[in-house]
């Protein structure tokens, strides 16, 4: 495998990690007011993601940083091209993050309610927009190109209406509903009491519609470029959702969570797999299309970055796994002593 391909793989892995990990954070955030009928329930709901959401969010920072370093033209064309959607994601991530940290800082129902809205909306917007953006990248965008010179690049000319096409909207809907399911399954695994009960019921009811939407989107994604080596992955993602439903009915929440995580991971693999070897597909002029080959940084940069990743990524995986191990206990079951702090 050549270096640019390896780095495409690295970017895909980081995005996949982000979608799987923040997927349940977003789901939990969207479901906060639905499952948390009283303050105790809401504390249990948010307590499930409290220690880990910040670390999960860094996967996005790392993914975008890797795009910047390894494929500068892709990074630049994508984030300027999706200007307004990305702006809304940023605003959403700001109010969600502040909400998660600040809502408990005052004992005041109106204060908490406002932050709960921020957390809910701040989870919904990125859940939808990232699905829409990834779908549009795979589908292709109208472009032009700048004159040759320092920093010459492809420029996305898509209007907001272009971005809100049916396929991309379906993509956004699929990530949103998948994250809802994933978040509910996570809560059923990590909590006890009324939140666990509500989460499991929600997951059991939604798993079939989510499965149908996901199948529709995966089919449309595969149809964009056939034949595709990702077809078995798409089958696996669908199968994982079926297994998630079975596991939920059997009360095996750990297996259900593994299954929804696999489904989201599979979806991400299909999207990035369908994109490869292109990065940003031009629908107006194939010469503008950014590819792994023409957008990549020089081999020296990629070699340096590879060494950094080889040394530090296992370390990151190690201590993040440890943090999940530390907080492995269910919340909200038997009476728990209030935390000292």
């Amino acid at each position, binding site marked *: 495998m050549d270096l640019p391909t390896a780095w495409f793989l690295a970017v895909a892995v980081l995005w996949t990690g982000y979608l799987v990990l923040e997927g349940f954070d977003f789901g939990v955030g969207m479901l906060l007011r639905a499952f948390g009928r009283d303050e105790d329930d809401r504390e249990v709901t948010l307590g499930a993601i409290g220690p880990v959401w910040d670390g999960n969010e860094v996967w996005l920072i790392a993914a975008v*940083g890797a795009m910047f370093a390894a494929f*500068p033209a892709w990074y630049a064309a994508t984030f*300027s091209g999706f*200007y307004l959607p990305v702006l809304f994601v940023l605003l959403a991530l700001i109010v969600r993050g502040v909400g998660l940290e600040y809502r*408990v800082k005052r004992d005041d129902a109106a204060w908490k309610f406002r932050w709960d809205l921020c957390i809910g909306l701040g989870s919904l917007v990125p859940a939808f927009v990232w699905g829409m953006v990834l779908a549009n990248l795979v589908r292709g965008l109208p472009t032009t190109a700048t004159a040759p010179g*320092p920093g*010459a690049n492809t420029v996305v000319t898509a209007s907001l209406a272009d971005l809100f096409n049916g396929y991309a909207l379906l993509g956004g809907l699929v990530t949103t509903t998948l994250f809802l399911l994933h978040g509910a399954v996570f809560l059923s695994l990590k909590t006890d009491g009324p939140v666990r009960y509500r989460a499991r019921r929600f997951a059991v009811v939604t798993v079939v519609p989510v499965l149908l939407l996901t199948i529709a989107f995966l089919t449309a994604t595969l149809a964009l470029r056939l034949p595709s080596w990702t077809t078995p992955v798409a089958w696996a993602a669908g199968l994982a959702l079926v297994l998630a439903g079975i596991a939920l009915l059997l009360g095996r929440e750990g297996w259900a969570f593994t299954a929804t995580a696999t489904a989201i991971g599979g979806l991400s693999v299909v999207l990035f797999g369908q994109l490869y070897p292109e990065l940003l597909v031009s629908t107006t002029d194939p010469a503008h299309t950014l590819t792994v080959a023409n957008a990549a940084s020089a081999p020296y940069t990629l070699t340096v970055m590879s060494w950094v990743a080889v040394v530090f990524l296992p370390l*990151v995986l190690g201590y993040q796994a440890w943090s999940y191990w530390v907080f492995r206990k269910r919340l909200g079951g038997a009476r728990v002593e209030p935390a000292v702090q």
Partner: protein
Amino acid sequence: MDALDLARWQFGITTVYHFLFVPLTIGLSVIVASLQTAWFRTGRTEYLRATKFFGKLFLINFAMGVVTGIVQEFQFGMNWSTYSTFVGDVFGAPLAMEALIAFFLESTFIGLWIFGWDRLRKGVHLACIWAAAIGSNLSAYFILAANAWMRNPVGYEVDPVTGRARLTDIGAVLMNPQAWSTYFHVIAASFVIAGLFVAAVSAWKLMKERWPSDGAPTPHASEHELFRKSMRAGFVVTAIAGMLVVASGDHQAKLATQYEPMKLAAAEALWQTEESAGFSLFAVGDIQGSRNHINVQIPGVLSFLATGSPWGEVQGIENVQASYEQLYGPGDYTPNIAVLYWSFRLMMGLGLAGVAVSVAGLWLTRRGRLPGFTRDGAPAPAGRAHRWMYRAVVAALPAALAGNIFGWILTEMGRQPWTVHGELLTAASVSPGVSLGQVAFSLAAFTALYGVLAVVEAGLLFRYVKAGPGAAMPYPDETTPEPERRAPAFSY
């Protein structure tokens, strides 16, 4: 007004705002970790209480630093896509390293620290806050290396085919003298802010103890000693860090002479090359006419700062302009002289004022003294009440923070008209496909949201300072049995 101007304003506003929280995160993480270490080693409750009290204030600030930092990473691509395409091969590497090496460490371990009080062994829990503090302090290096490269590009070449910069030597980028010198300067200045924060909070609490507001409850007896000590500790941190700021700042001036002569000349409003140049204290000039009407100077000091010798030669704006025209072709290579001149003075003046307040505070509180109090902590008679000291300490915090901000304005405005010195002009860096309306909308959205969050954050900090250490960790005689709770307290 075009998209370029608004994109510059947006970068300025979002970056300055982000940097209001960064120095406190960098410095306070280490101070809180040190307090917890003191508790770990001595087992004394007052250290634990101080850890929790300042820890809460730290976390309120930390959250804002994290969320406003995310914007930065996307903003390069959104508003500055030509810049990003040009520099990504060089500039992206330290950014990716920052995420992989520092941010994961910081964010994962801060979560473990917040929620790990009753789940981790004491020593492991202590290691978590240190890991987060190391992550914070490490992250600054990578982003400053990236910033230094823009001012002094090294270890790269421009690919003639793609028109993009290409990294040739990562060691040169990371060991850029501008990078490590700026790093020491920024880290030391962060500790000035963090020390002053601890001192200002403590001073405010002592002032309220000595001159209470009407109807305010009497603070717990132990708080007097806690805040006397923490105020002293804050003074010590600020004074030591202040010396390092001065030393690294001196080195920065010498590097500017070498690599950024235009910035130095503009910051001094020095129009013509001079030997034995004086340091300007106050000047009123005519920028179009390239001369100063009034200029109050201390002779030889600028030459000394810039070259190490009071007789050294310092290049003037017009001379640098002429040499740049020869190098880069016709054009105006002068930054905004008035902004640079006054930023330089405000950075030094306000920053040094904060340090001076700390040094004076150390003297006034020597050997257990405390203005306004007798030796055993009782209020001293009114005539000896030095309320002004407490007020000055509280005022020193925003002053020094403003000094920090003016330092960044000097750095960034001093690099103009370039984004990458000698390679790419700011005017050529902007995203070609982004419209004026889009930038205006995002600028308005960020400014409005940041304004609201500033009020919320300041209100919360004030509320927690007012509530005091007893709220962070109740005093034993005051605790009443808590009602039965099913949920673990999600409070931190």
